[in-house]
């Protein structure tokens, strides 16, 4: 089986702040990490590799040269190959251009059975890239995958997370699945594999637009119809408070609180 994982390097938003005036991300000095959902996507692929000998897991990413450390991390978790789509021509891509580029990279990789992506990247947050890549490759997609139930010959059965439950979906392979964090617990890297990945120069293959057969005007800013006018953090909502006890206790507590706030 051949599995491909789409992984993005993102700023660690636990440590990133949005400039409240300019509305842009303050990226200075913020460490970059493997997008959390993509770690779940990779774990799902590695779990399959563990149970189906002969499976290969390739990770593909579009990003600047520094993103190779994130790919070393994927290799150290157990991926077999890593590909970095990197070129000045890819800069400034919106989701449309990003998915064109990633789809071209995947075509160059040749056949596959399953592609895993994360549900959403914690910086761009659009959750569009997975489905768009699937659309460009002409394969079915299931988003929000929270469980893999069965992997059969030519199909896979998964659970798709909904707000209040889940759907069970049987989908033909090859297909694209986007992972949510409930899917699994990503494994740790392994020290020995970190050393192998980082000491072999050729462990990350870097491709530019020529390598994947795209013209410069089909990628990056030039091929991005989206223009981000403004991005902002909504002011945090006040914390809700849950009342507990019997109905009578809760209603009297509620009345008391409302009185305290002079609502009643």
């Amino acid at each position, binding site marked *: 089986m051949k599995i491909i994982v789409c992984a993005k390097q993102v700023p660690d938003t636990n440590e990133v702040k949005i400039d409240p005036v300019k509305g842009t991300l303050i990226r200075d000095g913020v460490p970059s990490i493997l997008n959390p959902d993509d770690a779940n996507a990779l774990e799902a692929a590695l779990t399959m590799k563990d149970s189906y000998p002969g499976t290969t897991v390739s990770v593909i990413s579009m990003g600047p040269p520094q993103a*190779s*450390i994130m790919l*070393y*991390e994927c290799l*150290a978790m157990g991926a077999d190959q890593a590909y970095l789509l990197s070129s000045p021509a890819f800069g400034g891509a919106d989701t449309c251009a990003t998915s064109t580029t990633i789809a071209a990279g995947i075509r160059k990789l040749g056949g596959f059975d399953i592609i895993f992506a994360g549900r959403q990247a914690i910086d761009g947050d659009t959750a569009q890239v997975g489905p768009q890549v699937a659309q460009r490759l002409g394969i079915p997609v299931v988003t929000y995958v929270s469980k893999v139930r069965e992997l059969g010959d030519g199909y896979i059965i998964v659970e798709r997370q909904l707000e209040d439950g889940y759907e069970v979906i049987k989908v033909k392979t090859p297909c694209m699945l986007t992972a949510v964090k409930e899917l699994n617990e990503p494994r*740790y*890297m*392994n*020290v*020995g594999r*970190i*050393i192998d990945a*980082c*000491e072999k120069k050729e462990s990350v293959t870097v491709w530019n637009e020529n390598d994947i057969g795209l013209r410069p005007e089909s990628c990056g800013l030039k091929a991005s119809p989206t223009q981000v006018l403004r991005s902002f953090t909504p002011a945090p909502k006040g914390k809700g408070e849950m009342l507990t006890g019997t109905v009578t206790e809760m209603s009297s507590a509620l009345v008391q609180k409302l009185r305290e706030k002079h609502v009643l």
Partner: protein
Amino acid sequence: MILSPKYQLIQKLARDFAEKEIPESMQEEIDQTGKYPESLYRKITDNGFFGIKIPKEYGGQGGDNLAYVLFVEQISRVSMVTSIYISGANSLGSGPLLNAATPEQLEKYLRPVAEGKKFPAFALTEPGAGSDAAGLQSSAVRDGDYYVLNGRKTFITGAPIADFAIIYAKTDFSKGAKGISAFIVDMDTPGISLGRNEKKMGIIGMPTSDIILEDVRVHKDSLLGEEGMGFINAMKTLDVGRLGVAATALGVAQACLEEAIDFAKNRKQFGQRIADFQAISFMIAQMATQIQACRELLYNSAVLKDTNAKDAGMHCSMAKLFVTETACRIAHDALQIHGGYGYIKDYRIERLYRDIRVNTLFEGTSQVQQIVISKELLKK
């Protein structure tokens, strides 16, 4: 030191593991009960952390000394006792084997250590021979194909949980240090018994006890290296081990600094955060600066060791001396910033203060490091 991706990832791995798998509540429980959770031990095994520094051909991960100190520092920042488990296997346990073992001994003992299947102990110290290790009195007398061991080893880390111990004993009392030989002894060999589990100030959760040897018969295949080469073997092991102790102390010192910053930002007296008193903020600036100096010294010493620099051994001693002494001072100041709360067990600094203390004592006291350094500088 600017770290390459390889070292950055090793650091990240250790940090992620420690923060996620060893929450504060678990650290408190280990400290209170003295029991180290089996589930955590298994995770250390499954992730190969007992073999970080053991070569790949023996089932380890093949890390160098820089990788190792970075790893230990991050683990120790969260749980010093966990770093003692890790160093027990990676350093004191496997060092003597890597220095002198035969291929058969490496297969039988080193591989299981790397894989977490056997836990080793390193038994040099005796009641009458601490800093003066060459003065040890345990004896090994040849009897046909066997040696018969007698004596008492003291303060042995992990003895109660160890599967085997490297025991240093004299095969020839007339030769002083050159009469010391090393043996690999299975802990279930008849004649071995343990002293009581010592009640320690810190690193509670890693048992320490005496090993008593009474007519312990071991086959000559258990001799590690040549007869008379035991003392050199022990010194070579401790030489590198010192980097690990310094890394352990550094990690705890970093934790102390973080606790102090957190407390100083939240505690109010005289109508303001205590962090806003210059006396406190300057203490914090001092601590942070010292930690950074320790870090550079330690990483540099590790690189010297990895590149086989001529005076690397002396640098390892310098790192141990300076980092552990500074770290204890930092713990002292961090506790001071906590005021009376620092003296109460509900605050993490109280445990850090107890844990960190042993670092200037074991694997050669600070004074012994000064002996090593000055001998190197003043040799004729």
